[in-house]
């Protein structure tokens, strides 16, 4: 078995090495772009050899224009605060951070991490002193990676003089939830409304469901954990 892995590693090494050999310059493009200009110059020079030499050299100084880099503003970072209903464990406040990258005007990619706390189940409340989970196990931590789609872009107006762009968006993705002493694969989906009052600032209202399998209360079942939250983000 080990020899099989060695053979595989060696085969891949052999296939990758020709790729390394193509790296003449580490950052190929810049050099490529620079190399392209002298190439043009030499062809112009060979043309010049064929045409007779100029009698008057033009005394025009070429203006070189510095092209400032255009700032890209596709990254959105922010914080949120809301309520999370943990199935069987009541509704509790939750908070967290989000990071998004806008790929096109329609799609964005979002990562988020949040934290909440599970309350007491009705079983624990009715039976008096029984505790299903320790204090640490009640901590509900989740993260997910989602794809968002700006479903209904639009504009919102405040009075006559102020308009801001807005979008109703759909979100779907997957991640993990750490709750009751175990980490579970979690699927999340939901929708949100984004208002952009300034080019760099946005306000979000988001509703999401986090679904994972739990066998905490005897039988294995899919639990739905609904979350509603308000967030603010800044564009970079």
């Amino acid at each position: 078995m080990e020899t099989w892995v060695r053979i595989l590693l060696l085969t891949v090494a052999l296939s990758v090495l020709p790729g390394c050999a193509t790296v003449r310059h580490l950052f190929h493009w810049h050099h490529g772009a620079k190399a392209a200009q002298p190439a043009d110059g030499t062809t112009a020079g060979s043309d010049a050899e064929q045409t007779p030499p100029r009698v008057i050299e033009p005394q025009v100084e070429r203006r070189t224009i510095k092209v400032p880099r255009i700032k890209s503003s596709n990254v959105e970072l922010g914080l949120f605060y809301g309520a999370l209903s943990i199935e069987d464990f009541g509704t509790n406040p939750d908070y967290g951070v989000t990071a998004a990258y806008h790929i096109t005007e329609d799609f964005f990619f979002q990562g988020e991490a949040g934290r909440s706390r599970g309350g007491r189940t009705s079983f624990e409340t009715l039976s008096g002193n029984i505790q299903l989970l320790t204090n640490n196990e009640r901590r509900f931590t989740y993260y997910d990676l989602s794809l968002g789609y700006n479903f209904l872009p639009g504009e919102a107006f405040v009075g006559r003089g102020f308009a801001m762009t807005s979008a109703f968006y759909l979100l779907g993705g997957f991640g993990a939830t750490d709750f009751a002493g175990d980490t579970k694969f979690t699927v999340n989906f939901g929708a949100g409304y984004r208002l952009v009052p300034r080019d760099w600032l946005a306000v979000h209202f988001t509703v999401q469901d986090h679904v994972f399998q739990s066998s905490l209360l005897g039988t294995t079942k899919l639990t739905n954990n609904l979350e509603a939250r308000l967030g603010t983000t800044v564009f970079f």
Partner: protein
Amino acid sequence: MLRRTQRAALAAAMLLALLLVPAVSAAREYLQLFVTEPYLELHTGPGRGYPVFHSVPRDESVTVLFRRTDWFKVRTERGVEGWAAQREMLKTVLADGSPFKFELGDQAGFSSHRYELGIFAGEYGGANLISAYWSMSFNPQLALELSAGQFLGRFSNGEMGDVGLTHVISPESRWSPFLMLGTGVVHTEPKATLVTPSNRTEQTAYAGGGIRYYLTRRFFLRAEYKAHYIFTKRNQNEEADEWKLGFAFFF
């Protein structure tokens, strides 16, 4: 309890303040472009559906403030600010008359780009796997790749991180296969019901391959397989297979 929430709120406020600082400080040099078509249309927002509210006539200039996805926020000589589409901006020129060129985010970009970012779902040694990767290309064929993942299984959970090289075989075609070679670490937490429930962190080496398929704009699909070789401290080294399918974009 209350003090803890107060602390969290304070930390959040400080983080927000930190976030706001770069947004507020904005003294920088902007690019000036000249309109060569009969006019340049300005929209009220960065999207195809936002109405045109202003047009800049030929030979007038606009200042490019920033770019968001395929839209440019510009300011006219008269101080009107609006959004211009990428395809319209292609028809503008710099002050010396040369055309304004920029990265478009099309299939040419798929063949040759600097960065990639993507997410995957899959399987690692029989456990569910969630992972994400980031890569930086040295040239259209060779890239340095970092990936991180979390696996959640019936017998153990854990995290893994890899760094390696990816060699794309035919970057110019829509279906482009690639090969990977690298090293990483894996942290495994066996579930408490097992006999030896000790957490362990081990070094790994991997070889693998996959295929990417260009969808549209900046998107592509990516499916890959990695054969991991785990160097354990026990008598025998281990092997683990990783299969995953994901979605990625380049920028």
